[in-house]
Structure formats: structure tokens, C-alpha cells
């Protein structure tokens, strides 16, 4: 039991966890969804835009007949890119198949998370036989047969509400050491009271659409004008295996879905961007002209561009598998911080000395003053106890620990400082729903299901226990 033959290990990994248990394997993963990511990476590397990998231990490549040493303090196993293999083609990237595989492997759990969030019995949604819809599971493989086009729209609107209502946050990336969550991971994260950034939330919608076989299109957004050759740039990056510069002008990701022959543009970002659910006519206007939005203080015009499915799949796949420090980029480089809610922005910065700290305090305080906001508070290890809200204090404390652990640089001698910036200026907040959609939905208000309203406090406390 202290050695595992490599080819047997690959056989094990090619199975879903349920299958493996049925086959008699005794191995239990600590996190089934992380195992799923690894399984897809190793079993279908081309779907994840990777070359096949080999295992290595103590610098020695292990071939199929070799064995992995599992004794006591055995050395870690490295995954090594098979440089002999061909460069993966971006056309092979297949999110839809990955989503289906993941759903097949974890159906019970995923349905449980989605059901908990949607609370379908309270939605009064009826199927084509006029019976109340009780569970998401009923619609798998028969979404179009199960619901009329109007009810399909109502269902997807509820989905959009649920995802939009989940917080725009990056805390959970550090707490779970996951730089970017894919669609199925997002449903678990949302069910736990967390959320994510725009691309992750779009991934959640994409996952659900793939499971329900709803056609989708990806839409990218940027504060900069979108280059005419954006697909070419993307292709160059994808075929360079990370050598070409990241197309960093891509700052936003949305999705269009097709229901009953009509396309709808959805933006579920939140973080003070109102829910967007537009019919094609309104969506065309938004895509032609962009739209203004403000998450914290700056008003920015987001330019939009429709793109083929492969491009959206590739962007989500790159984010998931190819940018290991993406959570640091979101928080520090893009300035999205750890949380953007209607009341509060929680940012963070690196501080490697008193002078830097004073400069950053000056910067954030100046921003507050120029935007007529209350002045921010700066929280570090030494004054964490002064955060009156116990839950927030606990969350910051745990995040600080994770930040330190995940930012492993021998050259860095400073620490992280949190910025708590109250957002006191009002935001436009009503959902932007096309008239045709409102009409189809019937009389409002469109109250999101109660499970979404659960706060992070419960989650953190439960996890802590």
C-alpha cells in the first residue's frame, strides 16, 4: 500500500470519484471538486489547453510501469509538461464537455447546491404539464420540453438573480487557495454564501446553460477600445503557451443565452453593477455603444464585443488553469480588492515600510475625499482587534493568514494592509431589464430566493467549526 503504479493511478483518476469507489478504490479526496479539476487536467489535457503531463518524483519522470512512492514523508509529486507532445490547439478547448463530465461525476451535490439557491418550490414555476417544478434535476436533458419558452425565461431570470445577488468578492479565493473558480465550483461557492468576479459568475451561468443545453455566446468587455483584431490577439496568446503577452485589455466577461429563439444579454457581476437582462434589441445598443458603470468611485464606459463560443471557453479555461496568481492580479493589479458591496469596499495593499504605508493611506484617503466618501480605515495585524464587527474581523484575520501563506516570496519582508472604505454615495441599483423581459416575467417585484440572502457570517462560522 505504500507504492502506486503510475498507470493504475491514471486509471483511478480517469474515473469519477463515485466510479472509483464502486471499483473498490479506498482513496478519498479531501475536496471532490479539486479532484475533478485534476482529473480533467490529466485525462483530457487538450480540453484545458494543456499538453499531456507526466508525473515526476524527486526530479525523476515516472512512466506507466513506474510506481509512485507513498511512504511516510514521501517526496511531493510534480506534474511535468510532456514537451514531446504537440502544442494544444485552442479549437480543442471544450468547456461544454468538461461541464458535462463534471456534472455526471457530481450530479447529486451540484443539484443540491442549485436547488438550495433557487428554492424552486417557492418560485411557482410550472412545467408543461402544469405541475410545480420542484428541483433543477427535473430539467436535465429536457429543459425545452419541460418548460414553455416563457417559463424558461423565468427560470433563467431567477438563475441570473441568484448569481447577481451573490457577493462580488475575492476573499474566498484566498480562503480556499483557488485563484479562479470554474462554473461548477462557483455553484458550491455561491451556495456557501460567497461569490466571485464577473468571469467566475459568467462561468456559473455558462455551466448551467451547458447542462441544460441552452445555446450561449460570450461577450467580452473592456474599458479600453476593443482592438479590431481581438480574436487574432487571443489566438496568438493561446498558441504561445503563455509566452505572448496576456490580452489584459479584456476586463469584463458577460454571456448571451438563447431562449425560445431569442437572445438575451446577461451581466451578473454585481459589485454595484445592476443586474442586466436585455433582449436582443437592447443588447445591440449596449454592444454598439458600451455602457457606463461605477463599482467604487470611477465611472467607466465598458465597451462590449460579442465573440465566438471558443473564445469565451478559452478565456475561462486560461483563467482556471493557466494564471496561477490570478487572485493576486484581481485584488492588487486590477484594484478590485476583496469585496465590493453597496456599503463597503475592502481593498488590500502591500506595505513594506512606514513610508509606503503612509503613501498608500494618502492615496486611498485622497480618493475618498475627491469622491465625497467617508474616510477609509486601514487595518493590519496590529489593529485587527479594533474592527468592531466580529465577523469581518474574523474574515480579515483568516484572509491575512492566507495571503501571507500564498504570497511566498523570500524577498518580501512587509505585510498586507486592508482598506475598509465605506461607500456612502448612492449607486444606480435597479435591475436593467428589457421591457419585453419584464412583460414576460409578469408583475414584479422580482424578489430573489431567500437562500441568496444568507450572509457570509454563517458560512465562515460553520467552516471554522
Amino acid at each position, binding site marked *: 500500500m505504500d507504492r502506486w503504479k503510475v498507470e493504475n493511478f491514471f486509471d483511478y483518476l480517469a474515473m469519477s470519484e463515485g466510479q472509483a469507489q464502486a471499483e473498490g478504490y479506498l482513496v478519498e479526496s479531501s475536496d471532490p471538486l479539486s479532484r475533478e479539476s485534476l482529473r480533467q487536467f490529466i485525462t483530457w489535457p487538450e480540453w484545458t489547453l494543456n499538453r499531456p503531463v507526466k508525473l515526476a518524483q524527486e526530479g525523476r519522470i515516472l512512466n506507466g510501469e513506474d510506481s509512485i512512492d507513498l511512504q511516510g514523508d514521501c517526496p511531493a509529486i510534480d506534474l511535468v509538461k510532456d514537451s514531446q507532445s504537440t502544442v494544444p490547439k485552442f479549437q480543442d478547448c471544450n468547456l461544454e464537455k468538461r461541464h458535462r463530465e463534471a456534472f455526471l461525476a457530481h450530479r447529486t451535490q451540484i443539484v443540491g447546491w442549485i436547488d438550495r439557491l433557487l428554492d424552486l418550490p417557492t418560485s411557482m414555476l410550472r412545467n408543461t404539464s402544469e405541475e410545480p417544478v420542484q428541483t433543477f434535476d427535473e430539467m436535465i436533458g429536457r429543459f425545452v420540453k419541460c418548460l414553455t419558452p416563457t417559463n424558461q425565461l423565468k427560470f433563467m431570470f431567477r438563475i441570473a438573480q441568484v448569481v447577481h445577488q451573490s457577493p462580488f468578492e475575492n476573499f474566498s479565493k484566498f480562503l480556499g487557495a483557488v485563484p479562479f473558480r470554474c462554473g461548477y465550483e462557483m455553484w458550491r461557492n455561491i451556495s456557501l454564501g460567497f461569490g466571485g468576479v464577473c468571469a467566475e459568475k459568467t462561468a456559473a451561468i455558462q455551466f448551467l446553460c451547458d447542462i441544460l443545453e441552452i445555446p450561449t455566446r460570450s461577450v467580452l468587455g473592456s474599458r479600453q477600445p476593443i482592438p479590431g483584431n481581438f480574436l487574432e490577439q487571443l489566438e496568438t496568446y493561446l498558441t504561445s503557451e503563455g509566452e505572448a503577452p496576456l490580452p489584459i485589455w479584456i476586463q469584463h466577461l458577460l454571456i448571451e443565452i438563447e431562449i425560445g429563439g431569442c437572445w438575451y444579454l446577461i451581466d451578473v457581476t454585481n459589485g454595484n453593477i*445592476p443586474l442586466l437582462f436585455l433582449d436582443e434589441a*437592447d443588447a445591440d*445598443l*449596449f454592444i*454598439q*455603444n458600451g*455602457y*457606463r*458603470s*461605477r463599482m467604487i*468611485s470611477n*465611472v467607466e464606459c465598458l465597451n462590449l464585443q460579442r465573440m465566438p463560443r471558443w473564445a469565451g471557453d478559452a478565456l475561462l479555461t486560461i483563467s482556471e488553469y493557466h494564471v496561477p496568481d490570478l487572485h493576486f492580479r484581481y485584488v492588487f493589479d486590477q484594484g478590485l480588492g476583496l469585496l465590493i458591496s453597496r456599503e463597503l469596499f475592502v481593498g488590500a495593499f502591500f506595505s513594506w515600510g*512606514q*513610508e509606503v*504605508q*503612509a*503613501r498608500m*493611506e*494618502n492615496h486611498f*484617503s485622497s480618493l475618498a*475625499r475627491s*469622491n*465625497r466618501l*467617508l*474616510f*477609509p*480605515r*486601514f487595518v*493590519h495585524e496590529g*489593529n485587527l482587534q479594533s474592527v468592531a464587527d466580529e465577523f469581518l474581523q474574523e474574515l480579515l484575520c483568516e484572509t491575512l493568514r492566507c495571503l501571507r501563506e500564498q504570497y511566498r516570496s523570500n524577498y518580501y519582508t512587509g505585510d498586507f494592509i486592508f482598506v475598509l472604505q465605506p461607500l*456612502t*454615495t*448612492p*449607486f*444606480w*441599483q*435597479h435591475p*436593467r431589464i428589457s421591457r419585453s423581459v419584464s412583460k414576460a416575467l409578469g408583475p414584479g417585484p422580482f424578489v430573489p430566493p431567500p437562500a441568496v440572502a444568507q450572509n457570509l457570517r454563517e458560512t465562515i462560522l460553520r467552516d471554522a467549526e
Partner: protein
Amino acid sequence: MNQKFKKELPGADSFFQPDYIPNYDGYPWDIRISLGEAPLEESYYFTVQDPEAIHLSIREVLEKFALNREQQGNLDVAQYPELPFLQEELILYFENGKTGQLGLEIFVNHNPSSNPVDLDDPVERYLGVCTFHDNSFDYRVLDLVFVAAVPDLEPEEAENLWEAYGHLSLLMLIDYKYRQGPQAFTTFTHESSWAGFFNKNTIGDPYPHFTAGMVRLEKEGMIRRFDDVRFGYPRSDMSAALELTPIGQEAIREIHEKEKLYAQTYDPFFSVSPSPPALDVPDGFDVRVQMMEYDNLDCVEAILLRILDDQEDEYFGGDQWANCIESVPFLLRVHEALAYKTHFSTEVLQSLKSLE
């Protein structure tokens, strides 16, 4: 009067009722609506093609143009596709404001008055001009700001503050009036606002705060009424109806000492730079309140004394002092000062302190 809103549009200059506004007669004009302190760049706007509509009331132009769903076809969706959605949101605020479901106040940006605008006033009285630096746009604008009114200071909180610090404002009022000279002080003590105090009849007293506060000062031996002077019958040779006792005089002396100390100690921190640390910089941060807190001072008392000292003419002068005591606008100022205090780190405060 303090301007309530003076929001600027980047790349443009805004002027409220400039002399040259008649030059724009005969041209279309804009209604712009923003929310509270939210930036103008994200505001809603509607271009009114009819130049004569400036003679209508604000309510009329809102209902006829800017907040009229039937006018959605005239919105500039080619430039800003979100405008119809902003209009829907504003209509909701406006309608709920009308029914009282929402306390909605509407201000005019750059209006010198700090009061909400009367919607029945004609538009022309509140028009401004917005001129872009690159001359791409130059137009008249009714620059409205919608504010969902929420009380800045909860009544209970105001009451608690009054209970704890009201006596300070009353002592400073008496001192202020006393410094105006004997005749002015005598007249002050015979003003009708004292009726509740002197007649001991608090039913229907329009100044219950003031009366209760003075009763308390009397009980604490700080003021003394003259029983032989009949209140409310002013004659040319009349005497003041009350005086400050030695205890009261001592309390006022202490107040002045504290004021002086606070001014000396904390005024240097009125406009500072945290990085590099420097005092008395132009357009710096006001860290006085945070510094007071750092020194474990009773911040409310310190701020209140500074505010009352700085603006004693506004609060205690003229004939509105009793209304002022009743509505306690100075407590609101204290509340704002506390809410808008800076939160620099101890290290920054220490480095600033070392510069003194």
C-alpha cells in the same frame, strides 16, 4: 448659506445662473439628474428641444419631459443605452416621493442655497450653463440632484448628545449675549423664548429644549433669576431677568480655556499631508478629530466647543438663536465631523505629531 451640492463634470465648467445666460435663449437645453453625491458622469439626462419650456415649473418639465415614459424615444440611447433604465429608476423615486413612501428631496447642483428646490418654481430661475473645455458642448442645464432623504442624525442620538452636551451650548449662548453689552443682555433675557422658563408653564412651550436646559443650569447653580424683575415687561430702565452665578462664570472660564487649548493643540492639524508628513499644506487632510481621539479627548465636547466658538454669530446672533437651540444644527455638525474623520494609522499620526 452653504451650497448643498457643487459637483463638477470632468472636462467641463459649470456655472449657476451666469450673467450671460440670455445668450442661450432660443436653444434646446438639458435636464440632468444625478443621485446625491454620485458623480455627474453617470447621470441621467434629457434634452428639451423646446426653448420656451424654461418658463414651466420644475415639476412640469419633469413630468412632461425627463420623467415621462412616453418620451423614451427622445432619449439619447445611441450614446447612452442605459438612459431608459435610469429613467425608470428615477420615475420610481419621483412617484414614491410624491406618495410619501420615500422622503425625496430635490436639489439643484451649484445652487447657492442649501435647501431643496420648490418644484413649483420656474425652471429658468435655476438654470446653469455647462461648457466643455474642448468646446464640444456648451448648453443650459437644469442640474437636479435627487436625494432620498434619510435623517443625518437620528432623533434619539440627537437627544443623547443634547443631554450630555446641551449645557455647554447654553452657557456659550449666555456668554455670547453677555459680551454684546449690558443692554443687549438685558433685552435677551426678556425675549419671549424665555417664557417657558420664567413662567414655569411648559404647556405649548415652543422651546422645550431651551427651557429644560436653562432649568438644569439653574438647578446646578450656574444661573440665577431675579425675582424682583418682572420678566416680559420691558421698560427703558429695566434690568436683566437673570444673571450668571460665580459657578456659571467659572464654568464659562473653563470652557474658554479648553477652547483655547484645543485651538492651540489641534489647529496645526487642519491641513496636513501624511506622505511625506507635513503640516499646513494647501488642500491637505483635516486630521484634527483623529488627533483628538488619539489623545483620548472627549471628541464631541472638543468639536462642539470649536464649532460654537467659530460660528457663534451664526448660531447665537440675530433673532433666530432660540430656533437654533431647538433644532441643534451644531450637533449635526459634530456628527458630520465625527463621521468624516480620517483614519490614518498610528504611525502617520505619530510622524505628524513629531512635526509640531
